């Protein structure tokens, strides 16, 4: 008997979209679904496993519970937020196999996009935006909304972060970052209902050395890195994993490069778009690493980042790609081809040091000789 007591509690069996997994007690439906992975996993716009108390708000992760548990197999009358509902033994969950869920989720996406400015063409998040992904999956062409969208003023919250409240989906993640990672929270949610907004209230600068992590947790382009603003589209940049010895943080980052220039530094993300953990500790990075270390020489480069998101950015990524066989050497009996031209001599565009520009790169920069490097 005594042996039995010492044993870990028995794992619980849960079936999600006809796939059964075993998980420890206290696991949420979302976490169990992530264990299965793939399409079965509900999208999560507000939940963030590294932020305590997050989730439950956006309602994109709603699922149907067709049977509560073996002990009480009744279905739950309402759809539940999978990010905040714990698994019971024998629970049967329907996500992509439930029409009700698909319909409700499409509804939530419509609500999220209702007042969204849809300014993806000028938004830095485009290409790695979770709302874009959702829109592609569940959105409809056109809108049924015939009214003016609500707007807010842009706000600089701190010297390196800009807030575009128009794009915000009020997931509250940034407020949890401020609460849990910085010493003194100076921003939060003001007002309520459809006029609720993230603000510092008195336009007070956020200056904490971990504040930059808000940018990484923001699922949309509401919080953007001012040092990267308009510098480039993410899909033109080349992400590489790199690290440095940082006294403040884990120092493990992704550098987003164009040529040798480091345009942006972010924490490394996992397949759910969350910051990666190392030895169970979330790999938040400090503002020094994020905003100050913009030279490749500051970093030890480990190699290309594996981008495993399903979004636009991964359209041209390297994972799983078949490299065509090099044939020139074959036909030239083992000789290497001689390069005939240097692309930089042909194209002026490539001579511009994007990171040296004071603001956004525009066609004027390319026309204007004086801004060329040298």
């Amino acid at each position, binding site marked *: 008997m005594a042996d039995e007591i010492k044993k870990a509690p028995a794992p619980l069996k849960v079936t999600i979209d006809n796939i059964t997994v075993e998980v420890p007690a206290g696991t949420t439906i979302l976490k169990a679904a992530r264990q299965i992975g793939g399409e079965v996993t509900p999208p999560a716009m507000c939940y963030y496993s590294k932020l305590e108390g997050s989730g439950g708000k956006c*309602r994109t992760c709603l699922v149907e519970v067709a049977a509560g548990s073996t002990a009480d197999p009744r279905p739950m009358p309402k759809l539940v937020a999978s990010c905040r509902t714990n698994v019971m033994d024998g629970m049967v969950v329907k996500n992509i196999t439930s029409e009700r869920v698909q319909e409700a989720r499409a509804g939530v996406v419509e609500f999220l996009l209702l007042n969204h400015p849809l300014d993806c063409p000028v938004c830095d998040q485009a290409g790695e935006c979770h709302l874009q992904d959702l829109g592609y999956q569940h959105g409809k062409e056109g809108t049924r909304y015939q009214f003016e969208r609500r707007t807010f003023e842009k706000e600089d919250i701190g010297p390196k972060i800009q807030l575009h409240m128009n794009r915000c989906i009020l997931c509250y993640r940034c407020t949890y970052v401020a609460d849990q990672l910085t010493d003194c929270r100076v921003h939060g949610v003001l007002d309520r209902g459809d006029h609720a907004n993230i603000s510092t209230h008195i336009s007070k600068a956020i200056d904490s050395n971990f504040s930059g992590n808000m940018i990484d947790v923001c699922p949309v382009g509401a919080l953007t890195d001012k040092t990267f603003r308009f510098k480039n589209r993410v899909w033109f940049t080349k992400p590489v994993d790199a690290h440095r010895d940082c006294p403040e943080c884990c120092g493990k980052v992704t550098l987003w490069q164009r040529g040798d220039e480091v345009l942006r530094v972010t924490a490394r993300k996992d397949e759910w778009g969350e910051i990666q953990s190392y030895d169970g500790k979330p790999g938040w990075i400090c503002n020094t690493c994020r905003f100050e270390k913009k030279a490749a020489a500051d970093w030890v480069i480990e190699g290309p980042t594996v981008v495993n998101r399903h979004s636009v950015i991964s359209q041209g990524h390297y994972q799983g790609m078949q490299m065509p066989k090099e044939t020139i050497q074959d036909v030239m009996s083992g000789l290497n081809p001689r390069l005939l031209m240097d692309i930089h001599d042909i194209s002026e565009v490539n001579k511009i040091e994007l990171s040296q520009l004071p603001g956004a790169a525009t066609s004027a920069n390319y026309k204007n000789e004086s801004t060329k490097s040298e």
Partner: protein
Amino acid sequence: MGRKLLLEKAHIENIRSYEVYRKEGGYRSVEKALKTLTPDQVTDEVKKSGLRGRGGAGFPTGMKWSFLTKPEGVPRYLVVNADESEPGTFKDRYLMEFIPHLLIEGMVTSSYALGSNRSYIYIRGEYAWIAHILEQAIEEAHQHGWLGKNILGSGFDCNIYVQRGAGAYICGEETALLESLEGKRGNPRIKPPFPAVKGLWGCPTAVNNVETIAALVPIINEGGEEYAKIGMGKSTGTKLISACGNINKPGVYEIDMTISVEEFIYSDEYCGGIPQGKKLKACIPGGSSVPILPANLLLKTAKGEARMMNYESLADGGFATGSMMGSGGFIVMDDTQCVVKHTYTLARFYRHESCGQCSPCREGTGWMEKILWNLETGKGRSGDIDLLWDIQRKIEGNTICPLGDAAAWPVAAAIRHFRDEFEWHVTHPEEAQKRNYGLAHYADPLSVSVA
């Protein structure tokens, strides 16, 4: 002639003062409970009484109390919900304003049953003067030994604090209320955990409506079984109804839940009929969140039975042909009222009061309001009614707290029962600006009062 248990003495001169209240038999229930009953016995009496929560959901109070977890060394709390912000509901205000000691008396006994040594009254900010009345009553109760340390030598300590809200309907939702009481933004919490397990400051907490707690006084005085004999079926005891709208005598009435809706509207003892000989068009029987009913379905259920003023009968027929007792805010509309305008007004209220946490409620309430405004002002399009229906359907059941449902239900019910009136607003936009749609087929079958 129904029995009155709560408001019977409310109009005695100076009943607000401790001396008069005590002379009229006040605080007897505390004596009885603390001297002759154990806390569990008090809860048992509440269970026997069949008392159902008077705040809107109608959940059995005794059962709710028995869910309260009692871990060793962790304080428990009683929080009285006096936020009363539902349009059409003003019964708690009346009770607290006229006979405040009844609430304090009920609270001492309830706190004893629950083991709460610090109990709170969370009152809506706009009831500023009532907060003073309550504080005065608490002060008097202290002076006479009904609060404080070792009450009546029972070893039980209890203090009551009044906390004013700052003008948010959402802070009436029990978990938003607890957040606000803790000094935070009044966002509803995600449940579970329920307050009975993790409530105020993370401790087990019972949140109850003012009227629910006041009902403890007659329950203990008369015994749970006696209390349960009043009323009908699962609607035991008496209920306060705040009646307003197109009636001759708006006000707060205590009913014993055995009378019919027809009697309530037309008899001189209660609402006294509809003024100026107008006809009854529709009614919201339980506060703005519950479905509106047209006259024909209000007075008789779909089965053709007389509809009674109690929990079961008002809900008879589900949402298809019934409504809810809700918080007892009884809003009557005569044939000159416009259902579209009325629905717009409610939609505007819910848009304004949404906390904005979850997307369907935050975005959907504003959308519905805008469409309803277009319909009301003659700019409606033919697809708007179906669109409204679809929006409310996508909000309902998909939100964190019931405010989303409360915003969806009135819109759904108005379209369900008054679709032709909405359509008329689309097809006759100019005429709709000049006159009201009137009665059509919801004709009030009664033109004379029954009393």
